């Protein structure tokens, strides 16, 4: 069969049931991405005879004799199609995994379709941006700044260094490489929520042509660990094996089949005979901790950091200061309510997966889609008894994370398979596997009690939290503790009480997810604050102003924290409240709505520690190169967070040069040093500080080297673009490099950050909504968020983080919900049944920044990647309550959920 791909004829025969997507990738067109492999996300869009199609749905044989254009062929070699240039100018991407499909789709829209983007783009999902930047690209808006003066990069909207590769489909993600002799792994998964594996008959599977190995619990290290990755292993329980002889949720991996092709590996999985002894299961968290419930991890102990295995309690926290009950009894107003949050998925468009191989020196190389290469390396070395220098873990560009890749879900199997077979191996999860077998946000049931005096001063705050960690305890404790932390400590209140418990159930595990517990509890706390204000007749802004902490106030939650390193490095909460209040009051045209639509406004605020507790470490190194440019090496990963841009800005500013003079290497353990990882919003606040320290040290070294050459005082030297200058004397960086080389003293420096002390960042979200009392539909009429990010390192990117956080959080507030049936099975494990926000679903959010400069963060900056998510559902709930007079206490706020109460009240 002959095909024309990007103008070049090919003669290839695709497999009978092969889709065009994999056919194109096998021919090396890696710009064609897999987001869902089911036609829902659009990441695999290509042009077929000039028309956009989802290549995952097109039988490859049907492309015979037709012209196929992938992103790589949209413009002549080296050039850029106007739409590619528009995406660059607007920086209409974050992780960039959807970008190829988005550009090909946008480039093919006619004028009518461009005036109806909600419908035209409903087949393209972007999980990062919130779509505003994509709309800017379509409108020809330029968001990136031109080159700026040397030394002034920090604080400017400079473009992401990977941009040109991202828009051309050349940026390399996890699977965008060809490896000779690669074997494929497929996983046999449990159909039972709780069972003991009695026997696995491998014979029929091993007989499938092309199958090399079948790995079971008998092959796996007899050692417990946690898939959660933290700097301190003691943060998570040791309750997981690479492959276990007990399965605790539907979808848990039972065995791995390693074969020449994915088809053979799949066939091997089908032919495996697994004999299960089915055990009683429990999927409801209340039932899980009740007497008589099946015990999910009966043998785990407190030494393994499982708080009370006999009651399925993996972690808990209880404490009180003051006397909440007495305070509530004597308060002028009180509120009490129970709120529930659902299971939501990160839905990063690049699924989990990776490649592993043993190189000629016997080093196990693992290339994976991870936020934490260094912590993964450490655990692989531990699990497989390898010296750390015999394991290398790295990632190239990662297609979205949102916390889901602060886990080790695939690298353990990859390592096991590579070590057992001695061959390079690949494991790429399907979208369905993402849903049934990775991690989700912890669903929580939050009971809140709150009281205030007649002046609107809080008298009591109490939270009772039940968190469902699923079958394993990865992140169970830290998420639970964080959930009951800053949402309370942001308010001054003399009486506070917390009872928080995380329980095991026989369901897909929960894990780390942007916001890390706070979005769940904020819905309850911020609703309570509003309800008190309503009873007192004061505004939702004023009650917060009267009660929020201000610099000097202790930030307290019970029981007392063992960490005392959180400081007010800066404080912009007051500004954030003012900014949102002003924006909400600004005149705005009211859309023409029928009387069925009820309107209302609501706000919510959030505080977040800028670094997770107990240590978050980053090393950075920077060296002067022969050509006078610099090579900066950091450990932190890029998955759309934009840190690659900011690290160069920090280094360029410290070295008084421009960003094009900084070459960045990142996220590879072979580079040396350590980096805890890109989680907890630490990519700038921690790793950026290490970069700043390294670059500032090197700047001093450069001055000293020049001063030595000139026999003058280093204090008289300054850096100027590409040279060191003292009076009329000038020596270029390249000349300095040559001098240093001659002297055998290369100019290089390193920096380190230990992630302490920590500061606090703030966000306030405001919404104006309309709710249709006859249908339950919600329209967002206005969305405003103010963020205190300290000195904003890159306003364009930071705005994008805020918008993307709002969009992702709106998905969880309005639409997204993983539905688990009574047996613990996820019944909607595909995007068409799990609705991610598309272009039509996301309002434009006005973003404002407080003007602060942080005393702790790098160059005054604070973290701003998780917290924009946190107040969104809470603010939306408050706005809906204001519009309808009904307090809805369960997310998502879907029309069919709101309708019964609306019908009761309004009788339509």
């Amino acid at each position: 069969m002959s095909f024309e791909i990007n103008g070049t004829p090919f003669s290839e025969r695709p497999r009978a049931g092969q889709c065009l997507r994999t056919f194109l990738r096998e021919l090396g067109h890696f710009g064609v991405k897999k987001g869902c492999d089911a036609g829902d996300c659009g990441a695999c869009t290509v042009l077929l005879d000039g028309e956009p199609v989802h290549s995952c749905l097109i039988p490859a044989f049907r492309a015979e004799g037709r012209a196929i254009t992938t992103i790589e062929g949209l413009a002549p070699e080296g050039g850029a199609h106007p739409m590619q240039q528009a995406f660059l100018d607007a920086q209409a991407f974050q992780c960039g995994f959807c970008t190829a499909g988005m550009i090909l789709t946008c480039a093919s829209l006619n004028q009518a379709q461009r005036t109806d983007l909600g419908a035209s783009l409903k087949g393209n999902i972007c999980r990062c941006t919130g779509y505003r930047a994509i709309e800017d690209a379509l409108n020809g808006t330029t968001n990136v700044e031109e080159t700026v003066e040397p030394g002034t990069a920090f604080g400017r909207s400079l473009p992401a260094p990977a941009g040109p590769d991202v828009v051309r489909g050349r940026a390399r993600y996890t699977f965008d490489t060809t490896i000779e002799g690669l074997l494929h792994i497929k996983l046999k998964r449990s159909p039972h929520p709780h069972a003991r594996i009695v026997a696995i008959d491998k014979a029929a599977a091993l007989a499938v042509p092309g199958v090399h190995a079948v790995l079971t619990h008998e092959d796996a290290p007899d050692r417990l660990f946690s898939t959660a990755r933290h700097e301190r292993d003691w943060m998570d329980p040791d309750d997981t094996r690479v492959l276990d002889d007990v399965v605790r949720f539907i979808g848990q991996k039972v065995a791995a089949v390693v074969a020449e092709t994915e088809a053979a590996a799949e066939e091997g999985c089908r032919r495996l005979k697994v004999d299960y002894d089915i055990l009683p299961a429990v999927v409801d968290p209340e039932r899980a901790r009740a007497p008589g419930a099946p015990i999910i991890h009966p043998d785990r102990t407190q030494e393994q950091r499982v708080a009370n295995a006999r009651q399925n309690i993996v972690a808990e926290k209880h404490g009180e200061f003051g006397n909440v009950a007495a305070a509530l009894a004597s308060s002028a107003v009180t509120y009490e309510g129970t709120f529930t949050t659902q299971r939501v998925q990160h839905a990063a468009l690049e699924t989990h997966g990776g490649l592993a191989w043993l190189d000629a020196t016997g080093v196990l190389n693992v290339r994976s889609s991870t936020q934490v290469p260094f912590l993964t390396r450490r655990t692989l070395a531990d699990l497989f008894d390898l010296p750390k220098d015999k394991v290398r873990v790295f990632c190239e560009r990662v297609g979205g994370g949102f916390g889901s890749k602060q886990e080790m879900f695939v690298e353990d199997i990859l390592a096991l398979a590579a070590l057992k077979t001695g061959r390079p191996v690949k494991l790429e999860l399907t979208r369905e596997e993402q849903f049934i077998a990775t991690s989700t946000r912890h669903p929580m049931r939050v009971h809140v009690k709150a009281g205030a005096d007649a002046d609107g001063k809080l008298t009591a705050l109490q939270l009772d939290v039940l968190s469902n960690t699923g079958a394993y305890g990865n992140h169970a404790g830290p998420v639970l503790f964080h959930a009951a932390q800053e949402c309370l400590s942001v308010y001054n209140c003399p009486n506070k009480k917390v009872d928080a418990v995380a329980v095991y159930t026989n369901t897909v595990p929960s894990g780390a997810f942007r916001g890390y517990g706070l979005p769940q509890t904020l819905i309850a706390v911020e609703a309570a604050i509003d309800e008190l204000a309503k009873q007192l007749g004061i505004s939702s802004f004023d009650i917060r102003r009267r009660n929020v902490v201000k610099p000097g106030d202790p930030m307290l939650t019970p029981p007392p924290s063992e960490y005392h390193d959180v400081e007010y490095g800066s404080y912009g909460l007051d500004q954030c409240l003012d900014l949102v209040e002003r924006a909400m009051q600004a005149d705005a045209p009211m859309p023409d709505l029928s009387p069925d639509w009820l309107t209302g406004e609501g706000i919510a605020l959030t505080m977040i520690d800028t670094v997770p507790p107990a240590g978050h470490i980053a090393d950075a190194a920077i060296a002067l190169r022969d050509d006078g440019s610099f090579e900066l090496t950091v450990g932190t990963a890029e998955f759309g967070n934009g840190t690659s841009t900011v690290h160069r800005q920090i280094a360029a500013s410290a070295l008084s040069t421009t960003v094009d003079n900084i070459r960045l290497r990142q996220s590879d353990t072979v580079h040396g040093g350590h980096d805890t990882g890109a989680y907890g919003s630490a990519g700038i606040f921690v790793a950026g500080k290490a970069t700043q320290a390294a670059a500032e040290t090197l700047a001093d070294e450069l001055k000293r080297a020049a001063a030595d050459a000139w026999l003058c005082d280093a204090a008289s030297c300054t850096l100027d673009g590409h040279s060191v200058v003292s009076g009329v004397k000038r020596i270029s960086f390249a000349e300095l490099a040559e001098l240093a080389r001659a002297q055998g003293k290369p100019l290089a420096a390193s920096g380190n950050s230990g992630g302490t002390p920590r500061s606090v960042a703030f966000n306030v979200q405001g919404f104006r909504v309309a709710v249709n009392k006859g249908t339950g539909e919600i329209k967002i009429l206005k969305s405003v968020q103010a963020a205190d990010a300290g000195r904003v390192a890159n306003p364009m990117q930071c705005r994008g983080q805020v918008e993307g956080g709002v969009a992702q959080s709106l998905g969880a507030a309005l639409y997204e919900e993983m539905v688990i049936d009574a047996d613990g099975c996820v019944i909607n494990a595909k995007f068409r049944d799990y609705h991610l926000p598309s272009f039509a679903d996301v309002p434009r959010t006005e973003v404002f920044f407080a003007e602060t400069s942080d005393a702790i963060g790098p160059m005054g900056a604070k973290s701003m990647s998780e917290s924009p998510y946190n107040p969104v559902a809470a603010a939306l709930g408050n706005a809906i309550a204001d519009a309808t007079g009904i307090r809805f206490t369960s997310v998502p706020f879907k029309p069919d959920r709101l309708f019964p109460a609306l019908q009761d009240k309004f009788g339509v």
Partner: protein
Amino acid sequence: MDLNTIAAVAHPQTRAQLPAWTAGDAWLAGGTWLFSEPQEHLNRLIDLTDLKWPALTISETHLSISATCTIAQLDALACPPDWLAAPLINQCCRAFLASFKIWKTATVGGNLCMSLPAGPMISLTSALDGICTIWQANGGEQKIPVVEFVTGNNRNRLTPGDLLRQIDIPLTALKRRSAFRQISLTPVGRSAALLIGSLGDDGTFTLTVTASTVRPIQLLLPKSPDAATLGKLIAQEIADDLYHDDVHGKPFWRKHMTLRLAEEIRSELCDTARP
């Protein structure tokens, strides 16, 4: 996605060349659903492309839509001005959860044969009194109205080896005045209720309820009803257990949206003066 168990693809050019149906076979029209989910039970695809059925044929009395007509081809049909119901075509295309990119590949017949409650081509062709022609596995031919073809969620009258050949729409149906209403849990999402009403020259009022119910339900009234009459009829004819229950909408809400949209349609068609 790759369908790795598929070993062969047949490409018949005539009905006579259709291979004998065996377990593990599947008809391949657009393939947009087939390739969107694992199909481990299948080993052969029978590609309908080379049968080269004309997508759309207009006769004196009927519009014939072949089963392999794509959504995009149907949407692009230039309709004569006296087809007052023609806007329904685009309205129903837009009711797809899938975008215009899928419309180029997905087929009208495929949508009917999937028989999902939210299948908008089911809504369209049942509201327009469409008749399915089925090539039966035994060599015979069968004609069934679309409203009877779909029997439940993901269920229809086809038996293994049966092939949907075409849907014939009487032109009289296309010339009726019509009204369209749809609601979803999300702004451009999957239909949770999709109702189409029409008014015949003789004053008959037809209401076709789809998406909210597990199968299409058509209500006929000899003359324009008032609100109470229509509401009562819906309550009578659509038992609570006919309302579909899945992640795209709870039955209680679907029922009330059905009543609400039906009344909007009635009001639009019956309470306004004829143009």
